[in-house]
Structures are given as C-alpha cells and as structure tokens.
C-alpha cells in the first residue's frame, strides 16, 4: 500500500467547491469507502454512500444510497456546493497486520502441547 493510499480522507472538509475542484472532490468521494455529506446549493444536506458518478453525459451526476435507507438517489453536479467526508473510512487501517499480531500473541499465550 502506498503512502497516499494509506492516508484516509476521513474528516476532510474541502469547503465550497466548483468546476475542476468539484470534479476532484467528487472523484475522491467516489473512491472513499465511507459515508459522505453532500451539501446542495440550496443548503440541504444529504448523508450517505456515494457509489457512482458520471461526467460523460450532458448533465453530470452522482448517485448515492442515503444512510437512512431507500432506493439510490441522483444528484446533478450543478446542484452540489460541497462534499464533506463525514463517515468512517471502512477501508482504512491495517487489519491483516493486526490479525497477524493477534495470531502471534495467541500462540504465545497457548501452553505448549504435551506439557
């Protein structure tokens, strides 16, 4: 894992963005494995998992599953003011190393067989 991949965006608030900055933030949100809060230009906030974006259409959009359930919703780029990385990054951490450590610790704790 590279250093860049190790750095989690959890808690990141890029502030109000538009144009290329918005595109950049949307890409990071699409890659993020936690919930985000999308702030619309009318001030409304939508919390959920952003799982898709499409810029190859006349009106670019993102798709989200809201945290409180329901079918996916579509939000046009043009109506987004900001995206905050508010949920826990579920891909962060180093669970393999942690598992190896706990496994080694368990072996040390076990009494030797035949004793």
């Amino acid at each position, binding site marked *: 894992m590279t250093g860049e991949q190790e750095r989690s965006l959890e808690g990141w608030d890029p502030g109000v963005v538009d144009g290329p900055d918005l595109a950049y933030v949307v890409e990071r949100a699409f890659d993020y494995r936690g919930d985000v809060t999308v702030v619309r230009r009318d001030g409304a906030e939508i919390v*959920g998992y952003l799982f898709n974006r499409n810029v190859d259409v006349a009106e670019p959009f993102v798709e989200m599953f809201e945290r409180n359930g329901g079918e996916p919703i579509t939000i046009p780029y043009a109506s987004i003011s900001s995206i905050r990385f508010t949920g826990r990054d579920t891909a962060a951490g180093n*669970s393999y190393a942690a598992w190896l450590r706990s496994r080694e610790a368990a072996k040390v704790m076990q009494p030797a067989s035949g004793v």
Partner: protein
Amino acid sequence: MSVPVSQMWTVGTYVLKQRLKRRRRYPLVLMLEPLFRCNLACAGCGKIQYPAHVLRKHLSVEKCLAAVEECGAPMVSIPGGEPLMYPEIGRLVKELVARRKYVYLCTNAILLKEKLEAGLFTPSKYLSFSVHMDGLEPEHDEAVCREGVFAEAVEGIREALRRGFRVTTNTTLFDGASAMRMQMFFDEMMDLGVEGMMLSPGYSYSKAPDQEHFLRRQKTNELFSKMLSNPKRRWKFNQSPLFLQFLMGKWDFECTPWGNPTYNLFGWQRPCYLLQEGYAASFKELMETTRWEQYGHKSGNEKCKDCMVHCGYEPTAVNYTFTSWKGLKATVAATVAGKL
C-alpha cells in the same frame, strides 16, 4: 478437465452463435453479487469495505433475474459477500436453474451444512457449490484471517457431496504460496471427492488491507509452472486448460474485461469484476459506453499491468478454444493427455 460435457456443449454453442451473429463483445459468465455482506473479513478481499447501511442491503430476486436475462450469459457465478447470507438464495438459485443457467455459488461454506439441512437447494447439473479454499488448513485459515474455517468448509463440502451436489473449489494464490504445499492441497481436495478445482492468482485490490502479498506476472508464471508442469491425472480442474497454461506462461493472452460482467447493488460495474471505475444503469450501456481500450495488459493501464486473474483471462482462453483450431487442438490435447 472436469467440466461436464453438457456444460462444455452449452458454452461452445453459445460462443459459436455469438460469432455467427458477428458480436464483437459478449459475456460468458455473469458475476452476480446480490449482497456485499460477509461472515469473514479476508485480508486479500476488497469487496466488503462499505458502511453498515450498504452492507445491510441486498438485491431483490427480481432484480437479479432481470440482470441475468439482460446479460444473456450461459453461466452465472454468485460471489459476494457471502451468498449463503442472502435471505433469498434458495429462490434465486431455483429460478436460475429453471432458466438452465449453469450456476456457481461461490461460498466460504461456513453456512453450507446448515443451509443444506434446511433444504434450501436441490441437486442439479446446473448447480455447483464453488467453495473458497486457499490451500491446506494453515494457509486457508491464514488467508481468511480466522482459525477453524478450513475444517468448517470441509464439513460443508462433505455434506454437499453426500447429498449429491456438484462441488468445486476456488483457490486464490498469493505471493509466498508453496508449489509443493499446493500439490498436497490438490491431493486433499481430490480425496474429499470434489468435482474439480479452480485456481487464480489474486488481484491487488486497492481497498484490501493486505497489499504486499499479491503475485506479479513472472512470479505467477514460475509458481504455476512449478505447481502444474507435471500434474497428476487425478487432479481435476474445473476451468479451461488454456487458462492454466496461460498462468504457466505458455500463452500470451489479452484480457477480455467484458467476458465476466458484474452486477451488484450499484449497477453494472465498469469495467470488470475487479476494478470499480463506475456503474452503468443497464448491460447495454455498460457494453456500449465503457472505454474498453483503456483496459487489459497491453493498454498500459497501471491497474491492469500485473493482472492475470480468471475473470479477465479465462474468457479469452474459452473464446480461443471455440474460435480457433489451434486453441481447440490444444484444449483437446490437454484434456485427453492430462498434461498442461
């Protein structure tokens, strides 16, 4: 090879029909992920890192069946997540079998015995449990990050075989795998009585916790050559011999990323089972709007550089078998002689 003749016939005629229709791109296996939830958290898996509300969701059977119809592939693989945790897995499999789709239900088998005892499934030539087994007991338990899983899987396999089900195994090989230990594993699986084994090198998911143990191309060739250059006749592989020869470095295939399209909660995944670069709302949209030229070994795409995974290269091997005399001859020779 251990693929039943009826299944080979179905796939062969399907490929030929696509060629006659002059379809340039067509799917062979639909990877249908009805849920992301799993009862394991394997170090090499990048499929399950989602917020809890996403993990709680699953596709309806109706959505699954609509995707199957839309895609049209003759085989359906049900990975996940753990498909035996899908509340409607019995009904989904029954519907797929009724449609004469060859179903590979990919499971870690922790719940297999329980689900079989509950009468969820009926043996059929169209249904195979493809049990995740990453090697002998210590290697497997290490790969799935939990001790005792190998023993549970073996118990599930025995129960499925006892009840007359088709059972295969699927094994992902990572860096550090021992060819000799894998050969012992092949013996053990054959002793258990499974119909055949499926092998693939792992893919370095950017979201998987363990990034250090994925095989690179040369290492893949070396490991598979060592492991398979003198195969025992009793070892049966439920996959294309040309794909195994490709892993041994004997063929220079290119990826067929549309060969095993993936459908899940988010839609049709671009471009393949391993990379998540976006989602299309329909299979047609996936096929027509994905920039396929940007993927595959020769594309120069960094994410594809070292990939030799079955979902991209086995379709290439299968197509080569059924669309070229050289491929057909090599497949027949490997099957008859039992040599790779």
